[in-house]
């Protein structure tokens, strides 16, 4: 089970003044159960790339295989693909339309033609997963707060029971508490339900804390594709394309520049803490 992109190219508005080569020769293999972070500057092609993964956009050139099948085959069922590869767009709360929360969550599974009971079960389960209580399910989605709306919208995709979940900037515009809630939810979905997750993000801290593999895009090309720790050692190159490494990476590098023998690999605050304590003990600064 995997997604394979083979020499994928995409060109917007070909032949006009607005022409843009949004994806250039993308080769990628996404295995089952991976937790991938996708970062890149605005306009680097991230959103275009993820829309290719569930067949919403068709590559100008190249092939995409899902579980070994070519999704551009004329007899390939794109609707089924879309239920397998769930895509949560940026500001997903803008797509809510029903009169009650539960009805909105049911929209996805009922489009799959499932029996009514199954649709109900899935909707309740998805709402439970995102932490929307049963006392709220009959409210109008427009009465909710921003963070709650977003969770309802994510539930709408989860109710389709995707094997791969793609989230485009799921934390944009949320406060720190709302951000942590969403990211913890995604992380637990990955751990407990064994869903493959692709997280598109601007925040280096977010991806460093959660993902196992980091893909960096620039001008429609893949620049780095490695473990976050390895990618962040190139922090100078990341800065040049308008990105940055997590703040602790800078702290550790600064320490090293000052002549201290620390490992610059830590990317989360906890790891950095451990490393500094280890170093301090060795130096005899910290005794216990």
């Amino acid at each position, binding site marked *: 089970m995997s997604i394979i992109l083979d020499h994928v190219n995409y060109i917007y508005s070909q032949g006009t003044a607005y022409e843009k080569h949004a994806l250039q020769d993308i080769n990628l293999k996404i295995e089952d159960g991976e937790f991938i972070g996708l970062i890149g500057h605005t306009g680097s092609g991230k959103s275009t790339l993820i829309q290719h993964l*569930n067949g919403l956009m068709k590559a100008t050139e190249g092939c995409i295989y899902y579980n070994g099948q070519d999704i551009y085959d004329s007899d390939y069922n794109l609707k089924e693909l*879309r239920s397998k590869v769930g895509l949560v767009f940026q500001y997903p709360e*803008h*797509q809510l*339309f029903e009169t009650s929360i539960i009805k909105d969550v049911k929209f*996805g599974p009922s*489009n*799959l033609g499932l029996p009514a009971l199954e649709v109900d079960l899935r909707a309740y389960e998805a709402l439970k997963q995102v932490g929307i209580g049963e006392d709220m399910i009959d409210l109008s989605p*427009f009465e909710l707060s921003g963070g709650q709306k977003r969770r309802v919208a994510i539930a709408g995709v989860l109710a*389709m029971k995707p094997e791969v979940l793609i989230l485009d900037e799921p934390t944009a515009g949320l406060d720190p508490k709302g951000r942590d809630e969403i990211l913890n939810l995604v992380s637990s979905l990955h751990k407990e339900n064994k869903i493959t997750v692709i997280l598109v993000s601007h925040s280096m801290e977010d991806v460093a804390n959660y993902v196992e593999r980091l893909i960096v895009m620039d001008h429609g090309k893949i620049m780095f594709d490695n473990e976050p720790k390895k990618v962040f050692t190139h922090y100078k190159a990341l800065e040049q394309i308008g990105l940055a490494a997590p703040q602790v990476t800078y702290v550790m590098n600064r320490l090293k520049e000052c002549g201290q023998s620390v490992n610059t690999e830590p990317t989360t605050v906890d790891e950095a803490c451990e490393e500094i304590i280890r170093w301090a003990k060795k130096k005899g600064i910290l005794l216990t």
Partner: protein
Amino acid sequence: MIRDITIGQYYPADSVIHRLDPRVKLLGTLIYIISLFAFHNIASYLIAGLFLAVIIHLSKVPFSYIVKGLKPILFLLLFTVMFNLFLTPGQEFVRVGFIKITLEGIKTAGFMAVRLIFLIIGSSLMTFTTTPNHLTDGLEKGMGPLRKIHVPVHEIAMMMSIALRFIPILLEETDKIMKAQSARGADFETGGLIKKAKSLIPLLVPLFVSAFRRANDLAMAMEARCYRGGEGRTKMKPLAYKKRDWIAYLCFIVYWTLLILAAKIN
């Protein structure tokens, strides 16, 4: 795709038509449209077509891009042609069953099609070559004299430019919502009329909500910058006629004269 709708859009290029004063283009478009309805003989259509071709060439907007803008009105065009073709009384040309095509029918249908195509291309050329900001300025200044009879010129111009500015935004929004709902398994293409109409609800509700939200945001942003109507508002770049604008007016006079001559000869 929905992105392909080009009516009312601006096409960036550096051409003499793009640099013309918006008032010239507005009045010119009006003159051109009137000319299409005032004269209907083959010679005048030839002149109108030639005139349009020259402007298209000068504007540097690709012809294929212009033709793409005709697609949405194709149905209307076919409809008009059919009506004229089958329902015009006159001398019989061919007859299949109860359907009868007359010579006059062919003539009016042809003229009608040409007139509609010229009309659409002519007016979309104006928006292709004029930025919404310029268009508003041109409208406001061009209609200036009407203010004396209490026509809210500034408000009309502002509303028009906002409407034009919102076309691409709302198209993009529609595209986005359609994709988001497709990702949830929505189907906008298949099914009968009722099913199709129903499938639009998940698209239209979020679209309306977002349109109101955007309108609200825009109103706030305008107020935050102390917008209070056209009273006492100054311009950073006031419009002023240049030499090329007078030459353009002269071209329109020549065009009109040629049309009158063509009509006289006929």
